[in-house]
């Protein structure tokens, strides 16, 4: 049996014979052939698994990148929306014009202050009027009394005129002129009486009017407006609370807008970070290429050796090594693919009892199939 290269060096520690040939045991050759067979197939399987892994990572990465991109867009949209809210939160729309909240509050507080001030002024004027009408009522009472006095005087005058008329008629011709004067005085007294009556009527009407006015005014002045004045306290507190709350909302929303913007930027970084997949793919391709070259080299060597050895020497399966290798495949799906490859294209697994298992592993899932 002839060997060259590395194998020759290791198998012939003494440098070999003069014709370049060394003696090798049949068992060693069989073992080597068994190893070479299993190794070549294992290399195939490993290449297949690497390609499969690379594809899985690529698909998952593309999917993730796409989802992250959508997430980044949504985060950006959210940030813009929140910023719009922030701009609107600090003001309200009045007659189509945006009025800042603090300006609005100051305006309303001023309005209420004016209202309270008007109530105070009104109360003060109402009380002045009440006091004035109190006085007027008293004066009108005096007036009624004065008219009564006129009546008394008039009765007296009338009585005197009547007496004068009687005395004049007793005096006869000498009293005729005096009787005329007495008659005139009686007329005058009647006119005065009529005037006093008219005055009384008018004064009575005035008294009635003043009393009604006084009553109405008392009702007005007696309407307590202090609760309305104190409502200003409540309104002021409400307004202050409103301004504070709005400012708090604004601050929270500003933070939220910032967070959304940060999220968008972080996601962009994540997408960039996912470019590791491209590099991984290239590396796996390079490894696969190396493995292919190794596999081809191994196959060629195997063919050359088979051509030089007697047909009787078969390949001896490296049982222990194979068991050791299979122990590494804990993922059942991957283990199944490995077994199939060795089973369908080689004899290595016949002795490992996988034929029975393969019969039951028709589908590609194989998740719950227990091999070995």
């Amino acid at each position, binding site marked *: 049996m002839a060997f060259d290269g590395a194998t020759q060096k290791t198998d012939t520690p003494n440098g070999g014979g003069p014709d370049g040939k060394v003696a090798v045991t049949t068992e060693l050759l069989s073992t080597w052939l068994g190893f070479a067979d299993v190794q070549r197939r294992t290399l195939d399987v490993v290449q297949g698994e690497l390609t499969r892994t690379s594809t899985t990572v690529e698909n998952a990465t593309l999917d993730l990148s796409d989802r992250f991109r959508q997430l980044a867009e949504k985060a950006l949209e959210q940030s813009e929306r929140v910023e719009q809210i922030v701009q609107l939160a600090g003001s309200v729309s009045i007659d189509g014009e945006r009025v800042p909240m603090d300006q609005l509050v100051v305006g309303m507080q001023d309005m209420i202050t004016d209202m309270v001030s008007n*109530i105070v002024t009104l*109360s003060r004027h109402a009380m002045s009027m009440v*006091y004035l009408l109190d006085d007027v009522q008293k004066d009108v009472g005096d007036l009624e009394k004065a008219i009564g006095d006129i009546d008394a005087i008039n009765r007296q005058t009338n009585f005197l005129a009547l007496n004068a008329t009687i005395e004049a008629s007793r005096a006869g011709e000498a009293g005729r002129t005096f009787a005329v004067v007495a008659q005139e005085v009686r007329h005058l007294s009647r006119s005065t009486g009529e005037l006093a009556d008219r005055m009384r009527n008018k004064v009575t009407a005035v008294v009635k009017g003043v009393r009604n006015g006084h009553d109405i005014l008392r009702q007005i*002045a*007696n309407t307590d407006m202090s609760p309305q004045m*104190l409502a200003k306290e409540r309104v002021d507190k409400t307004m202050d609370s409103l301004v504070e709350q709005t400012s708090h909302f604004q601050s929270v929303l500003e933070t939220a807008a910032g967070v959304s913007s940060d999220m968008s930027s972080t996601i962009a970084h994540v997408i960039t970070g996912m470019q590791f997949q491209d590099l991984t793919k290239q590396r796996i391709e390079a490894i696969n290429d190396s493995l292919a070259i190794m596999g081809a080299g191994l196959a060629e060597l195997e063919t050359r050796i088979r051509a030089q050895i007697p047909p009787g020497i078969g390949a001896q399966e490296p049982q222990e090594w194979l068991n050791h290798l299979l122990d590494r495949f804990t993922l059942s799906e991957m283990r199944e693919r490995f077994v199939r490859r060795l089973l369908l294209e080689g004899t290595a697994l016949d002795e490992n009892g996988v034929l029975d298992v393969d019969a039951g592993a028709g589908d590609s899932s194989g998740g719950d199939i227990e091999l070995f």
Partner: protein
Amino acid sequence: MDYGVEQRDQEAVVRLRGRLTFNDHAKLRALIGEMAQNKAKRQVLDLSSLEFVDSAGIGMLLIAREEMVNAGKSLVLRTAAGQVKRVLTVAQIGKIVTIED
């Protein structure tokens, strides 16, 4: 409402008690007359025992102030508390009448 007057060196202190409302307007008018006539230049209304004042009461206090000015005197509202103090504050009476705590 009722009241008590205390004459001091420089000022006359009138302590109002109870509730000052429209119904007291005649009584307050008499008091204003009294205050205008006594000799102290400084007339103090002590409001510490006044529990309540209505809007008419506020109007009467302003009339009192006006009458004091007409009589060449000054009016001071002192130690208001509770509802009275709140109403005086909200109505900004301090802008017109001197208020002391």
